[in-house]
């Protein structure tokens, strides 16, 4: 669904409703006005008929018509052909009393008239006469035409002006709303929320702002509690571990224990180390879930991979593996968290080394149509097809015989999700695995 800003929606609605008003008024007003004018014309025609009837009554029909003539008629019109009167004898004794539009030819010119036709019976001589009084309506038509044009222009001007006015008023009224939205947009973490109230005289906006503030305070509080909790749990767990480790260290330095006991103490230290790593990994995962890591560092991925390699290449040479490093993507710089990305590549490359006994480890950075990709491949033991979906889950490890706690890849997956990096795994048993990391475009 297309999403529009409230401002735009109001503007569009406003434009539509005004266009509708224009159409209705442009059609309606001229129609109304011409009807009124025609009605007025009719009134005038009726008045004139009364005057003519009065004249006929007082002067007699003979004044107008030569009774003895074969064709009895009278006609008069003014110079500009605006009005005419005609009286003529008719055969029928049907009573006629109508007002209608009619075209007459006067001096070889067709003129539109509103004509009142009225029949009279004069002097009981059974002569019927028809009186017609006409008034030109070309002025009315002209007026109607002009009116149409002017109402249209006038309405367009008025409506454009009100539209602009409405729009600026809407815009002005929505300023506080825009500020509230902007405040939320700028907040990617509850602690970065700006608690200054937005100035507004609209009570709804003030209410909205206050509600968001109070919700944000609650979120921030919950967030801080969670962080403190994780931090405290880690402190509570790691401090006892630290005490035991120091005690074991001191026992070992006494140096007066038999060899067997020494080895047992060393084994306990190793177990303790395992516990430490477990706590640290879980802690890191919780922190990622809590979005505590800042993602705004500019990280040069080629450099990060190179740093990991510097740290880890001894392991590669100790296992007599070949390292193929092809960092071909130029300007591979993304916004992210350098520490997490270091851990990510370290885990993947470390895993590749761990599960490969001969052949090579290959690390590539590639730029594919604006998308950065890192590929880490090995010639190791590979992963069975049905185990591939399980490798990123906590506590499930497809390589059971190797000493691992299944958290390394789960952590890597979390780091990838956090950075919106897509992971693809291609693997063949005894031929090797390839991990393809696709960075967001």
């Amino acid at each position, binding site marked *: 669904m297309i999403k529009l800003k409230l401002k735009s929606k109001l503007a569009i609605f406003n434009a539509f409703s005004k266009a509708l008003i224009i159409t209705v008024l442009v059609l309606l007003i001229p129609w109304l006005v011409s009807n009124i004018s025609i009605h007025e014309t009719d009134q005038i025609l009726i008045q004139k008929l009364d005057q003519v009837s009065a004249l006929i009554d007082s002067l007699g029909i003979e004044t107008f018509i030569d009774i003895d003539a074969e064709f009895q008629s009278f006609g008069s019109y003014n110079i500009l052909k605006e009005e005419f009167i005609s009286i003529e004898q008719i055969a029928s004794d049907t009573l006629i009393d109508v007002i209608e539009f009619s075209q007459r030819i006067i001096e070889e010119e067709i003129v539109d008239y509103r004509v009142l036709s009225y029949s009279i019976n004069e002097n009981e001589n059974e002569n019927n006469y028809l009186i017609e009084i006409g008034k030109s309506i070309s002025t009315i038509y002209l007026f109607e035409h002009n009116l149409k044009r002017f109402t249209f222009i006038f309405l367009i001007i008025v409506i454009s002006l009100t539209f602009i006015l409405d729009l600026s008023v809407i815009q002005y009224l929505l300023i506080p709303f825009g500020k509230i939205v902007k405040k939320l947009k700028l907040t990617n973490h509850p602690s970065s929320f700006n608690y200054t109230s937005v100035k507004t005289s609209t009570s709804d906006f003030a209410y909205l702002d206050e509600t968001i503030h109070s919700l944000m305070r609650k979120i921030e509080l919950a967030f801080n509690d969670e962080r403190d909790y994780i931090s405290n749990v880690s402190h509570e767990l790691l401090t006892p571990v630290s005490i035991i480790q120091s005690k074991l260290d001191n026992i070992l330095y006494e140096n007066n224990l038999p060899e067997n006991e020494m*080895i047992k103490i060393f084994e306990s230290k190793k177990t303790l180390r395992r516990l430490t790593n477990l706590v640290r990994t879980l802690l890191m995962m919780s922190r990622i879930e809590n979005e505590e890591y800042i993602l705004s560092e500019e990280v040069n991925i080629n450099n990060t991979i190179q740093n990991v390699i510097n740290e880890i290449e001894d392991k590669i040479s100790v296992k007599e593996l070949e390292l193929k490093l092809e960092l071909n993507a130029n300007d591979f710089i993304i916004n992210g968290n350098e520490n997490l990305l270091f851990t990510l590549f370290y885990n993947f490359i470390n895993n590749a080394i761990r599960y490969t006994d001969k052949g090579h480890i290959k690390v590539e950075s590639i730029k594919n149509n604006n998308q950065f990709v890192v590929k880490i491949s090995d010639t190791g033991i590979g992963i069975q097809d049905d185990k591939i979906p399980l490798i990123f889950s906590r506590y499930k490890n497809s390589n059971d015989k190797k000493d691992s706690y299944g958290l390394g890849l789960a952590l890597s997956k979390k780091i990838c999700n956090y950075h919106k990096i897509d992971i693809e795994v291609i693997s063949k048993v005894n031929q090797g695995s390839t991990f393809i990391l696709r960075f967001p475009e």
Partner: protein
Amino acid sequence: MRILIVEDEKSLASEIKQFLEKEEYNCDLAHTGNEASELIAVNPYDFVLLDIGLPDYNGLDLIKEAKEYQSEAYFIVITARGELEDKIKGFDLGADDYLPKPFSLLELLSRIQAITRRKFGQQMSIIEFGDFSLDTTKRNLQFKDQSVDLTKKEYKILSYLVLNKNRVLDRLQLTEHIWGDFFEDDYDSNYIDVHIKNIRKKLAKFDDTIRIKTVRGIGYKFED
């Protein structure tokens, strides 16, 4: 050398004290921030081991205070929180080193020694064994006036062994020292063994009386 240990876990504090006293350091204990604050104000310490997770005090404030008293103590910050922000803040305020809990006591000692060597400069930064001399500032090894070609990690392992001569260093301690606190879980791997083998080979070319002894099941020991 006088060291103040600021640690609210009494048991841990006393283990550290016991260890450092064996190494001829004079140690005072403070279990709260207030105690520490008072002790720093009146005593000239060389080192302060500071756990910043104190119940009554923000540990980092202690560094600020100490600087105000013109204390010349070096601060090694200990934290179980492992928060990067703490680390950065610590260095900004003048902490000289940083150790995440849990740490091995030997690692703590080596940090103290490294700072001491930096402080006393040249005369302490060169360690000699046989006809070899190990320069801890330049991070290289020489035999008489010939330079011995060691990789970075080989240098780190050798210097750690030499600086702790006659002491057994277990594989964990060596791993921790060399790889730091990555999520390293390959303790049983033979990386350290391979490195030691290479170091032995390289040293034997010049002098085959140098002894790096294998301690079965645990680690290695450098003998005089």
